[in-house]
């Protein structure tokens, strides 16, 4: 049975991908050990659990590693099927959820990373893709409470770490979230009212501080 095996999440506090896993585990009310990794010196457990990418997050369950945040979230949903379903029951709903979660990966977090990691001149298409991505997501959300409708689910989990990173993307991307995506900002606030989200997202100011530090280290300032 899923409960009796040892469960460890290898994570780094600022990773939006790690935040997704924490939220999913919290929604399922599953106990686990949270292990903070040092990005400058990755642990032997991390290197052996994710030899292909050597990246966090990794969920190690009974000694077996699951890698990649959206794979982990689906795994958590399927390993604890008796509570808090994270994906819709019907195949079409699931397809839509997977589509939009993948969209969030490509258009929000991959683009967002370019906004803070690159100088303005090198950002290129990233800002355009990012803001267009926000608009498409706003369209998809519409007037719903969550992306999944009344129930908080997969797409919400995929996107909500944005709330910890918005300030950083805004500063280096040169836009204002409230102007570009007011519905998402409101949705984000609703999500933050959930315990699972509030406990899993770090302070956006601390994220911003770290981003500034990394930029200085790489001579981007």
């Amino acid at each position, binding site marked *: 049975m899923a409960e009796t095996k040892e469960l460890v999440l290898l994570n780094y506090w600022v990773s939006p991908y790690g935040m997704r896993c924490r939220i999913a585990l919290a929604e399922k009310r599953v106990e686990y050990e949270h292990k903070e990794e040092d990005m400058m010196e990755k642990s032997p457990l991390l290197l052996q659990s994710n030899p*292909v990418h050597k990246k966090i997050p990794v969920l190690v*369950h009974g000694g*077996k590693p*699951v*890698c*990649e945040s*959206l*794979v*982990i979230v*689906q*795994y958590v949903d*399927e*390993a604890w099927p008796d509570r808090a379903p994270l994906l819709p029951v019907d*195949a*079409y709903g*699931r*397809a839509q959820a*997977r*589509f939009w979660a*993948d*969209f969030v990966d490509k258009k929000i977090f991959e683009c967002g990373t370019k906004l803070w990691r690159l100088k303005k001149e090198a950002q290129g298409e990233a800002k355009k893709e990012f803001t267009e991505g926000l608009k*498409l997501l706003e369209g998809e959300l519409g007037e719903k409470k969550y992306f999944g409708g009344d129930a908080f689910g997969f797409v919400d989990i995929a996107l909500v770490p944005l709330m910890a990173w918005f300030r950083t993307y805004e500063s280096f991307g040169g836009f204002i979230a409230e102007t570009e995506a007011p519905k998402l900002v409101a949705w984000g606030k609703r999500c933050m009212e959930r315990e699972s989200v509030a406990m899993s997202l770090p302070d956006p100011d601390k994220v911003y501080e770290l981003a500034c530090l990394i930029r200085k280290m790489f001579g981007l300032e």
Partner: protein
Amino acid sequence: MDQPPSSVKLLGSWADSHTHRVQLALKLKGLEFEYQEEDFINPSPALLLHNPVYKKVPALLHGGRSIVESVVILQYIDETWTDNPIMPADPFERAVIRFWCHFTDDKLAPAVGLVFSSSGEGQKAAVDQVHENLKLLERELKDGAFKGRRFFGGDKIGLLDIVLGCGSYWLAVFEEVMEVKLIDPESFPVFHAWLRDFEEQQEVKETIPAIDRLLEYARGIRQMMLSLSNSSSSSINNAAASSG
């Protein structure tokens, strides 16, 4: 619950590996479907309607709704028509399959594409990258999660076989067109054996276009790419000559 296989339509392109993935899955499930060929350069109004976000093939139309992105479509097919499952039942095994599908699309496929679209040093780096990626798959087949299996799905083809297999034929095509060594059987014996087994399956033979057509297609695109880069460098030479 199983759906009657009523009106399933696939918008695809004949040389597109993602389209082949969906065609193969539908065949393995024994499903009838209507096929509409789409032009990469000029997407039809239907494609723009059914895939407004990416405007690309494949798009599966079923029950008045559209599903896009090949790995999403494959899972939809598996969850809608539950006979002959292509995904394992165990959550951990499903996670392993999903991980390697991502790997195929995020790492291996772009590296293979880069071999095709680059030249000189850039191409050499891309070839090395393909080898690195194939090594990881070889290791997983030989000693890892898929050890001892005929296919990634076990005794029968599964979702990862479909995802990797529909696209791996480009390795042989690019080897010939680009004159590079991508998948030599000595370096990747287990992967090579898997691919031969995969390509021998009846449904696969019915899905993947004849190698001659693929070769001709690849040569055509490569020619076009080379002539585009030649004409831009010759205009640079002309400009330099006239100002010098």
